[in-house]
């Protein structure tokens, strides 16, 4: 699976709505200083709830709304980011993982326990045969064979007084951050994951405390 699109609306240096189309494999983002490269990575962290405001170089969330929006003096301004995951391979992968003889689960009629599913990441997996047993929001996630794309969106609304609300959505349905993190974990995306290295942080692993470093392996084991 891979991220196939990031859509930014009024987020940091992005005015209007901007699409950043991506593909699997190896992509470089380049350009002059101050143009907005790191802001794209901040958008990923923002949308997937992977960092606090300081981790995106903002003192508080409202600082993330494009300055022009805020200065137009509107009663309420909004910024949002959507990340679209391409799941076509992952589904097949998840389906194969859950079945000892390689037959996709929704074709075999066995229960998860019968298939000897022990990986806790799969225990929330819904499939066509189990839809009734699982909560409605889960049944829409990772349906066997039915969902090729998964879209996560986060909207940030800021009132003129400066108070704000932030809402997460999965495929258009609002959800809690905990729901989102649970689904992301199934895809091996974690808030403390070492898959995102921000500007200036690369040598952080060297200067961190040895116990902290050992915990990285704890969490993956």
């Amino acid at each position, binding site marked *: 699976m891979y*991220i196939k699109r990031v859509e930014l609306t009024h987020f940091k240096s992005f005015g209007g709505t901007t699409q950043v189309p991506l593909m699997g494999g190896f992509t470089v983002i380049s350009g002059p200083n101050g143009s907005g490269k790191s802001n794209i990575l901040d958008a990923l962290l923002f949308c997937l709830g992977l960092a606090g405001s300081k981790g995106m170089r903002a003192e508080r969330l409202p600082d993330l709304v494009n300055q022009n929006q805020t200065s137009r003096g509107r009663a309420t301004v909004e910024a949002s980011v959507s990340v679209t995951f391409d799941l076509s391979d992952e589904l097949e992968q998840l389906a194969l993982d859950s079945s000892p003889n390689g037959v996709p689960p929704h074709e075999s009629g066995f229960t998860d326990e019968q298939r000897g599913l022990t990986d806790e990441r799969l225990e929330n997996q819904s499939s066509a045969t189990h839809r009734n047993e699982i909560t409605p929001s889960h049944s829409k996630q990772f349906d066997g064979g039915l969902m090729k794309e998964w879209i996560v969106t986060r909207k940030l609304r800021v009132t003129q007084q400066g108070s704000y609300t932030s809402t997460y959505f999965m495929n258009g349905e609002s959800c809690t951050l905990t729901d989102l993190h649970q689904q992301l974990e199934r895809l091996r995306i974690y808030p403390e994951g070492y898959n995102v290295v921000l500007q200036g942080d690369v040598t952080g692993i060297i200067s961190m405390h*040895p116990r902290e470093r050992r915990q990285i392996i704890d969490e993956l084991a």
Partner: protein
Amino acid sequence: RQKAFREAFDVVNQNFQSIFAELSDGDGYLQLEDSQDPFNGGLNLVAHPKGKPVRRLASMSGGEKSLTALSFIFALQRYRPSPFYAFDEVDMFLDGANVERLAKMIRQQSQQAQFIVVSLRRPMIESAERTIGVTQARGAYTQVIGIKLTGHTASL
């Protein structure tokens, strides 16, 4: 729980050794502070870039630290891959030759995961399958242009 940790540690250690050898042209390995009871201590990185004698991590050069840290990240990746990796200027300390080595390794690892790498360095840009150009004209918003290495430019 100890057993699960042991298995993970051994695999990541093995990965680290071969990746470090490739990136830093030297020997490196992971070491538990307390090998009898891992949870009683931390995890150390032992690094001999270019076969130099062992030294505390802090005294390594900027480039040596970067390659050691990246070797660790890639070692974790081979054990438990994330679907995507987003790197922001991780090559900032590297000399030209090392940027090339890193770029080759990313190219290799990108067969198993998506790599989105922000970089200003030419060897990194040249190794990627495609480049996304980002600019911001004076008084305007950020603009994004997708550029394929076939020389075909598409604006978005």
